[in-house]
């Protein structure tokens, strides 16, 4: 079975498990919304909120990424499915890409909700010409986050103390995405006077990040879950 077909198979399985259990829909999305509301309480002045809304969107995304990754690999380790995949000789790169696709799909749903909340709660305006930049940023950043989340999620899966290990490993790594996505979104929303053109170098950084961790993950994932 080619890596790509395995990946699609794994991605479909992950999304079906989510459709059946609806954990992300019922727990993670409300959590992300709650985080946005808590940010509003903490910062409480409207002008500040409007200016930092891009940062808050991506902060909430990174927090939620953590939970979705833990759920995604919790499903695998609950009954030894990840070992069973390996024992069945399923290609590790296929598992990596498959789980990354499913993770990316769930993250995109999350980011749509967070953007809507930012517009509603923080009065962020998303004008037409900023939209292209914003959508590109979201797509590329989501790929990067999905690759990194799956890579370190697989490393921490099944390890003792994984709940605290995953944030320790993941947060330093997602820092470039957090900076890049926030600055690009700022340019897209015209927040704090940034022009749309200033956003594109950041998108380039996000593309490099996604490419590096896509390639690195595909190569390394096998040896991370191999016994």
């Amino acid at each position: 079975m080619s890596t790509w077909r395995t990946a699609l198979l794994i991605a479909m399985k992950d999304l079906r498990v989510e459709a059946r259990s609806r954990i992300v829909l019922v727990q993670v999305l409300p959590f992300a919304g709650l985080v946005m509301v808590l940010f509003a309480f903490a910062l409480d002045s409207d002008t500040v909120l409007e200016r930092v809304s891009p940062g808050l969107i991506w902060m909430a995304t990174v927090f939620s990424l953590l939970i979705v990754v833990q759920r995604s690999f919790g499903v695998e380790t609950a009954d030894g499915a990840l070992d069973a995949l390996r024992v069945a000789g399923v290609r590790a790169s296929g598992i990596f890409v498959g789980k990354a696709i499913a993770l990316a799909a769930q993250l995109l749903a999350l980011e749509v909700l967070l953007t809507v909340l930012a517009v509603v709660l923080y009065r962020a305006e998303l004008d037409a010409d900023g939209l292209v930049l914003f959508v590109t940023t979201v797509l590329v950043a989501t790929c990067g986050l999905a690759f990194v989340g799956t890579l370190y999620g697989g490393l921490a899966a099944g390890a003792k103390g994984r709940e605290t290990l995953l944030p320790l490993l993941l947060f330093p790594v997602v820092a470039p995405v957090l900076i890049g996505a926030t600055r690009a979104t700022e340019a897209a929303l015209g927040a704090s006077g940034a022009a749309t053109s200033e956003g594109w170098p950041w998108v380039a950084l996000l593309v490099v990040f996604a490419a590096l961790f896509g390639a690195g993950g595909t190569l390394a994932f096998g040896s991370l879950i191999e016994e």
Partner: protein
Amino acid sequence: MTAVTAGASESTTTASVRGATGTGTTFTRWLGAATLVALGALAVLGLVVSPADVVQGESVRILYIHVGTVWVAYVAFIVTALSSAAYLWKRTTSLTWDRIAGASAEIGVVFMAVTLFAGALWGRLSWGAFWVWDARVTTTAFLFITYIGYLAVRDLGGSHRQRARRSAVVALLAVLEIPLVHFSVKLWRSVHQDASVGDRTSDVTLDGLMLFTLMLALGAFTLLYAWWLLHRQRVLAMRDALDDKGLDRALAERRTEGVQS
């Protein structure tokens, strides 16, 4: 400048190093002695003998520590990355590469902590701020946390081989992150309105005795790094051997029961 304190800190290191027997050999004793002399000289020169800098006054003395330790920290992480690659490349090599990677990361993290601490103090004296969003300093802080994560991964359990492979991959991924963080912070600072403070440490030119003291600092800490790495690698080797021995004994006992039953 009180010479007494310099002497005091120097003597504490003398007593402890010379006594090493367990993992010591004649070579490491010579290396230990050389390290002590270099560190002693650094303390004396750095704190007392070398002059204050005409521009920044006494605070230049911290620079010897800050630059010395950041140099060794980066050397340590390069060694960790290289030995991790060496372990992964020729899969058949012994676990020595893995132990060198682990030992080097341990001392790297300690030196990174010292350099961040000294850097903050130096920043406070030169710029009145403990922390500034400078690309290199941020990357250093970022590396500090990343390698704490690496050390956490190292004691995740599993067989020695499993630990070695997993740690090696994480070490190489950490190297992958450095350019990403550095580039993103640099791009971020250049876009920001108030121009970044620039690479502070590089625009300070030292000469004469001060330059010599700085070189001495690099040398002393590198010697310390080498000495420590040798000893730590042997300690890790013994600990692995003990783990296996413990396993042997336990299973041998069960085997004898197995045969009798």
